[in-house]
């Protein structure tokens, strides 16, 4: 009986510690929660990736994120669901940034929409999409990753999971990603936390100067 009690205790402890490891001490229950927490605890350097902008210009990560604070999202132009709300979130962010102007002494805050459908979204598609949303090119840039492998590497590094759904669309863990002036992803906010994301980006920008 003593042996049984001892083994039961060990098993229960083992279960407790595995659950504590899985949930970051019972703070998160989903992988998305863990991703956001892990990024907040230790920033993720952006990988070196060749991008193509909506103006067909060659851009490169992490260079375009450096010297500014970036609020980024992932989308694809054919998207009919969550990207539409992402689009309107970004329109509101753009309006807030336009009203605000660049603060003296602070790094600029910019918006970046990255397509994860590099095979379909070339410069013309991005340009049409940007036009539809009324994006101001000085504040809000669009880009896709032409190289498939680099695109996969970027998604994997940033923890973006894209899965096809039954209707031929994609489901993805859409969120607002904050890149700091050193080209690192430092926070992930929920779509509903747009104001929080903006405040955080401004705070980061004022520190970055």
């Amino acid at each position, binding site marked *: *009986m003593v042996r049984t009690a001892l083994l039961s205790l060990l*098993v229960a402890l083992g*279960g407790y510690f595995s659950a504590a490891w899985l949930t970051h001490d019972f703070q998160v229950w989903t992988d998305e929660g863990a991703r956001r927490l892990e990024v907040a605890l230790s920033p993720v350097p952006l990988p070196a990736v060749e991008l193509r902008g909506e103006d067909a210009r060659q851009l490169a990560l992490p260079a375009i994120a450096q010297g500014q604070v970036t609020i980024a999202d992932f989308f694809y132009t054919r998207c009919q669901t969550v990207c539409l709300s992402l689009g309107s979130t970004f329109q509101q962010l753009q309006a807030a940034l336009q009203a605000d102007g660049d603060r003296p002494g602070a790094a600029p805050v910019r918006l970046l929409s990255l397509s994860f459908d590099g095979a379909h979204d070339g410069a013309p598609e991005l340009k049409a999409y940007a036009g539809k949303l009324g994006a101001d090119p000085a504040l809000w840039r669009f880009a896709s990753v032409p190289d498939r492998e680099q695109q996969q590497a970027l998604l994997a590094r940033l923890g973006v999971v894209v899965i096809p*759904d039954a209707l031929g669309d994609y489901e993805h863990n859409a969120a607002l990603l904050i890149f700091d002036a050193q080209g690192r992803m430092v926070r992930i906010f929920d779509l509903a936390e747009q104001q929080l994301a903006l405040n955080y980006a401004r705070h980061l920008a004022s520190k970055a100067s």
Partner: protein
Amino acid sequence: MNLHWRRSLARTLTPARQALAGLAIAALLALPASRHLLEASMWRHMVLQYPLWMLAGALLTAALPERAQNGIARWNASGISGLILAGTALLVLMIPRVLDLALLHPPTEFAKSAALLATGSALRLSWRRAGLVVQGFFLGNMLLMGVAIGQLYANSPLRLCNAYLLDDQVRLGNWLTGLFTVLAVAWLVQVAWWIMRREADTQAMAGSAPHSSAHRAAP
């Protein structure tokens, strides 16, 4: 007739054959193709792959020599440690993050499979030993928790796993709720049957009571 059928089943399912079947199931489950197939959907991942690993574990247990089984039994009085192991492992493995992590992180996938094998084996080594009271305690906790988790999966407005779609998650939640409810009902039916049989036995014994009391009265 029933007894005869049972005997012939026992003759067919020798320990060696059971262990081989367990090994075959485990080997099949470890193949990348079957992993891909079963893990492509959330409900197949938890409602098919999990129990199959447990079945493999239970079948493999047949290969344990008698001495090892007796040795384990000393650490498993009334099947308590085994049932605690099974309950703890299943509870941890139903945390949504496990499903995502198992796809992305091979050590987690390995640990998950090992834990499910151990769970199947522990259930087989402990269930009969446990008796109705311990079984009832285990199921009372486990099944209620399972139904609660099933409802959480079915009713969450958010996707709990990045790798799976929302309708898949709802389906999994409904499957879990249904499965645990069926298990609870099946166990209650078994208990009812057992109680009825015992009452019938008691009555039969009461019929021969004078005989036995006379026997007891003798010095």
